[in-house]
C-alpha cells in the first residue's frame, strides 16, 4: 500500500482490491480487443496500422499500470482513438494521394502477378469424366477430339495413356463408351461431378503426352486442358515474361509494359510521387472554376452559420423570456427539425420547392403572382440551399444559445436595469458579448463542418444548376468537397481515388488555415471582453 501514496500524488482515497481488479480486467479486455484487431490488420496486409495499434496498446498498459504516468492514463484512450480515427487515415490519405490508386489500378502488384501467373496458353482441350472410390480417391478419364484417351490418377498426380485391354476396367457403358467402374472407382454422374470440381481443379496431373512432358488441369465441368503457364514473374529484374512469345513486360507506373508500349490489363496500384498534387495545382480544368467554387464555399459556410445562429439565438431569447407560457412545449417543438434525419429534411425541402408542383410556389403564385425557378437559377438555388441549411442548423444554435443564456448571471442585468439600459442595450453590451465568449468555438466548429457539408449540396442540388458555357463539371452551387467528388468520381475514367485524396488534402489544408485564423480572431474577441 505504500507505493500508492508515494507514486500517485493527488489520489486521495486508498485503492480497494476490487478497484485494482476492475482496472486489470478492463486492461485485459482492451488488450484482447487490440490483439484481435492487430492480428487481423497484420494478416490483412496493413502492417503499419498493426504496429501503430500495438504501440498505442503498450502506452495504455504502461499508463494504467504505472502510478507515475497517472495523468496520461485518462487521456490515453482518447489518444488511441485519435491515432486510429484521425492520424492514421490522414497518413493513409497522403499515401494514396502519392499513388495512382483508382480505375484500372485497384489491385496490388502481388495480386496482379498472381492473376497473370494463373493464365495458361496453347492448351489442347480434353473432355473428362471422374471416377471416385468410396474412400474419396479419384481417377480422371480424359478424351481428346482425335480419339486419344488418358487416365489420370489424382492421388499420384500422374497421367498415362489408356490401354483398353486393362483388366481393371469393368463393363463398358454403351451410352458413352466408357467403363462403368475402374477397380473399385465408380463413374461419377455428370450432375454429381459439380461437388468435386473445386477439389479436382486444384490438382495438376503430370505425365507424357505425345512424347512430351505435359501438365493437365481441369478448367470446368466439360474441359480439362493441356496448359502451359503464360506468364512468369521475375522478381530479381521486376519483369513479367510472356512464356509464349518471349516478350518481357517491365513494371512501369502501375502497368506491366511491353517494349513497344503496350500495357497489360489490369494494372496495379503503384507509387507515382506528387503527380496528383501537380495536377490539382496546374490542370486548367481543375483550376478554372476553383476561385468561384472557393468563394461560394466560404460564403455558404459563413452565411449558414450566421443565419442559423441568428435564428437560433433569436428564438432562444424568446424562449428564455420568463413571461412565455408553455415554454417546455415550445422548446421541444423547436428541436424537432434537429431530430429528423438530414436527408429526409433535405429531400422534403426539395419537394416543397419544386418549381412546378411544389406547394411553396403554389402559395407564392396565388399570393404574389410569382413563381421563382428554385434550383433552376443559380442565385435562387443558392438561396434555397441557405434556407434548407438554416432550417437544419438552427435547432443546434438554439440549444447552445439557451444553455449559454442561462449561464449569464442575472445580477448583471439587474445592474443594467438600475443604470436604465434599454433592452437592446442590454443585449448588445451584456448578452451578446458574453454569449460570444462561450459560443465562439462552437461557431467555428459549425463553420468548419459546413465548409465540407457534402450531404446538403448533393441531396438538394447535386451542385446544379450547371454553369452555361462551362467546360468543367462544376455547377453553380458546388462547394469544394462536392466539386472534388465530381472531379474524382464523375471524371474521365471513373473512380480516381488518388486524385480525390490529393484534392481532400488540399481542402484539409485550406480548412485548417481558416480555422486557425478563426481561433486567433475569436481569442482576440475574448480578450476584448
Amino acid at each position, binding site marked *: 500500500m505504500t*507505493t500508492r501514496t508515494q507514486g500517485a500524488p493527488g489520489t486521495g482515497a486508498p*485503492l480497494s482490491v476490487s478497484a485494482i481488479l476492475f482496472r*486489470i480486467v478492463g486492461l485485459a479486455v482492451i488488450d484482447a480487443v487490440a490483439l484481435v484487431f492487430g492480428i487481423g490488420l497484420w494478416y490483412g496486409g496493413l502492417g503499419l496500422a498493426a504496429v501503430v495499434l500495438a504501440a498505442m496498446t503498450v502506452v495504455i498498459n504502461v499508463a494504467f499500470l504505472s502510478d507515475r504516468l497517472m495523468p496520461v492514463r485518462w487521456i490515453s484512450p482518447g489518444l488511441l482513438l485519435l491515432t486510429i480515427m484521425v492520424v492514421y487515415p490522414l497518413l493513409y490519405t497522403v499515401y494514396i494521394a502519392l499513388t495512382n490508386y483508382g480505375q484500372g489500378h485497384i489491385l496490388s502488384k502481388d495480386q496482379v502477378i498472381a492473376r497473370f501467373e494463373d493464365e495458361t496458353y496453347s492448351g489442347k482441350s480434353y473432355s473428362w469424366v471422374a471416377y471416385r472410390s468410396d474412400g474419396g480417391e479419384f481417377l480422371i478419364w480424359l478424351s481428346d477430339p482425335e480419339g486419344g484417351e488418358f487416365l489420370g490418377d489424382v492421388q499420384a498426380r500422374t497421367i498415362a495413356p489408356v490401354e483398353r485391354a486393362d483388366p481393371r476396367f469393368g463393363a463398358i457403358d454403351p451410352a458413352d463408351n466408357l467403363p462403368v467402374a475402374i477397380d473399385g472407382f465408380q463413374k461419377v454422374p455428370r450432375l454429381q461431378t459439380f461437388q468435386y470440381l473445386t477439389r479436382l481443379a486444384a490438382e495438376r496431373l503430370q505425365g507424357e503426352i505425345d512424347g512430351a512432358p505435359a501438365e493437365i488441369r481441369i478448367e470446368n465441368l466439360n474441359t480439362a486442358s493441356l496448359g502451359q503457364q503464360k506468364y512468369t514473374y521475375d522478381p530479381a529484374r521486376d519483369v513479367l515474361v510472356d512464356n509464349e512469345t518471349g516478350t518481357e513486360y517491365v513494371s512501369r507506373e502501375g502497368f506491366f509494359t511491353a517494349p513497344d508500349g*503496350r500495357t497489360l490489363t489490369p494494372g496495379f496500384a503503384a507509387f507515382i510521387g506528387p503527380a496528383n498534387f501537380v495536377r490539382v495545382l496546374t490542370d486548367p480544368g481543375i483550376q478554372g472554376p476553383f476561385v468561384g467554387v472557393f468563394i461560394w464555399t466560404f460564403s455558404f459556410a459563413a452565411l449558414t452559420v450566421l443565419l442559423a445562429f441568428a435564428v437560433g439565438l433569436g428564438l432562444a431569447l424568446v424562449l428564455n423570456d420568463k413571461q412565455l407560457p408553455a415554454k417546455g412545449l415550445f422548446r421541444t417543438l423547436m428541436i424537432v427539425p434537429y431530430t429528423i434525419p438530414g436527408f429526409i429534411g433535405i429531400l422534403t425541402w426539395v419537394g416543397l420547392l419544386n418549381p412546378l408542383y411544389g406547394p411553396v410556389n403554389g402559395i407564392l403564385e396565388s399570393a404574389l403572382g410569382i413563381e421563382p425557378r428554385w434550383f433552376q437559377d443559380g442565385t435562387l438555388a443558392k438561396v434555397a440551399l441557405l434556407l434548407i441549411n438554416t432550417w437544419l442548423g438552427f435547432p443546434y444554435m438554439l440549444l447552445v444559445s439557451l444553455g449559454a443564456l442561462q449561464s449569464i448571471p442575472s445580477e448583471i442585468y439587474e445592474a443594467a436595469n438600475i443604470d436604465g439600459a434599454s433592452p437592446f442595450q442590454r443585449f448588445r453590451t451584456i448578452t451578446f458579448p458574453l454569449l460570444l465568449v462561450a459560443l465562439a468555438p462552437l461557431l467555428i466548429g459549425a463553420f468548419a463542418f459546413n465548409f465540407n457539408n457534402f450531404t446538403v449540396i448533393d441531396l438538394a442540388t447535386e451542385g446544379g444548376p450547371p454553369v452555361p458555357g462551362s467546360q468543367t463539371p462544376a455547377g453553380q452551387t458546388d462547394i469544394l468537397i462536392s466539386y472534388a467528388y465530381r472531379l474524382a468520381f464523375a*471524371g474521365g475514367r471513373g473512380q480516381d481515388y488518388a486524385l480525390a485524396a490529393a484534392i481532400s488534402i488540399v481542402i484539409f489544408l485550406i480548412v485548417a488555415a481558416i480555422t486557425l485564423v478563426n481561433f486567433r480572431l475569436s481569442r482576440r474577441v475574448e480578450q476584448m471582453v
Partner: protein
Amino acid sequence: MHSTLRLGGALVALVLLLMACAGPGATTAPSATASAAPSAAASEEPTAAPSEPGASPTPTPPPAAEAGTLTLWVDETRAPVLTAIAEQFTADTNVPVAVYQVGFGDIRDRLQLYGPSGEGPDIVIGAHDWLGQLATNGLVEPLDLSAVSDKVDPVALGAFTYDTGEGGQVYGLPYAAEAVALYYNTEMVPTPPATWEELIELATDLQADAGLGLEQAYVLQEKDPYHSYPLLTANGGYIFGKNDDGTYKPDDVGLDSEGGLAYGRMLDQMVKDGLLRAGVNYDTMIQLFTTKKSAMFVTGPWALPQIRESGVPFAVAPIPAGAETARPFVGVQGFMVSAFAPNKELAVSFLTDYVATDTTMQSLFDADPRPSTWVPVAEAIDEADVQAFIQSASNGDPLPAIPEMSAVWTDWTDALDLIFTQAQEPDPALQDAADSIRALIAGS
C-alpha cells in the same frame, strides 16, 4: 501486496491475450481444413439459406464464399428466384449454395472491395455496363459461352463482351435485357405515332383538347440523358462513334454532331411549344400517366407492374423514328464470376452448364418477368407489352461499358438542364457539353 496483485493482473491479461489469439489464429488458415474434405463437410452445410451459412467467423457485411459452398450475391428482387434455383441445384448436385442479398447498387463496389481480399462471392448478378470497371480492374473472370452462344441474344452477348486490350472476351452470362419504349394511353392514342413528327403533332392536338384535361400529352423526364437517348439516335446523333466490330471509340464524341444538334433543337422547340417542361422527375412522369394527365411517355419495362396496377388502358410501342430508327440504350443483366472466387471452376460450370439451360432460364423468367435474352424463352413470351420491350431492346445500342462513359453523364445532364430551363441555346449547350466531355476524357 499491491505489486503482487499487479503481477497477477498482468498474468490474467496475458491469458486473455492468448485466448484472443486462438480465435483469429484459427481463421488465418481455414483453407487447409476446409479443402481437405470438401465433399463431406459440404453436404452437412445448410443449403441455400439467405441467412448465415454454418460457422462463418467473419462478421463483415457481405459474407464470403467458402471453399466448397458456392456463394452468390444477388439483389433483393432476384434473391427469391435464385434461392429456388439454388435449392434445386443443391438437390441435383449435392453442392451447397448460399444466396446473399446485396443491394443492386452496392454489388459492384463491394465486389471491388471484398473480392481481392478473399472475402468476396463466387458469382454476382450485375449489369453489363459494370464491365468497364470490373473487367478493367481485373475483378471478373472471362466465360466460355461458345457452346450456348446460338441461344443467347446477340445484342446481349455483345454487351457482355469487353475488350481490355487483348481482344474481346465474354465476361458474363446475360439473362435479361432492358430498354425503354413508348407507353401510350390507348383511349387517347388509338395508334401509336411512328415518327417524332407525328408524335409532336398528336401531342399538340391532345394538349389543345381541354376536354381531356391533360397536363402534358407527352412526358419526358427532365435532365435525364438515358430516356432522351433514343431521341438523339432518331435524329442521327450518337454518344461515342463505333469501330467496325461494334465497340465504342472514346475519342469520338458525337453529342455535338449534326444529328446531336438536331436533337437539341428539337427538344428546345418542344419546350418552347409547351410540350416539354422542366421539373418533371421519374415519379412525376409515372404519376401523370397513371392519373391520365398525360397520354404518352417513355420508360423501361420496370414500370410495367406499376402501370398495369393503375388500371389505365395502355400499350407499349417502339420509340418513334426520326431521320433514323430510334435506338434506345440497352441495359443487359447477367451473371458474372469473380476473378477471386474461391470456387472459380465450380462457379463457371454452374453458369455454363446449369443456369444456361432452357429450364433454368424459363424459371428465371417465370419468377421475374424481365425481357429474357435466352432466345427460346423470349420467343415463347406471349404478353404483347413484354414483346414490345424485347423488340425495342433488339433495336438498341448496348449502354457503353467503357469507363469513359462516366465522363458523359454529368455534362450531358447539364446540357439537357440548360435546354429545358431555356438558360442557354441548344447548340452552344451541347457544344459546351461535348467539349467538356472531350477535355475530361483527354485529361484522364
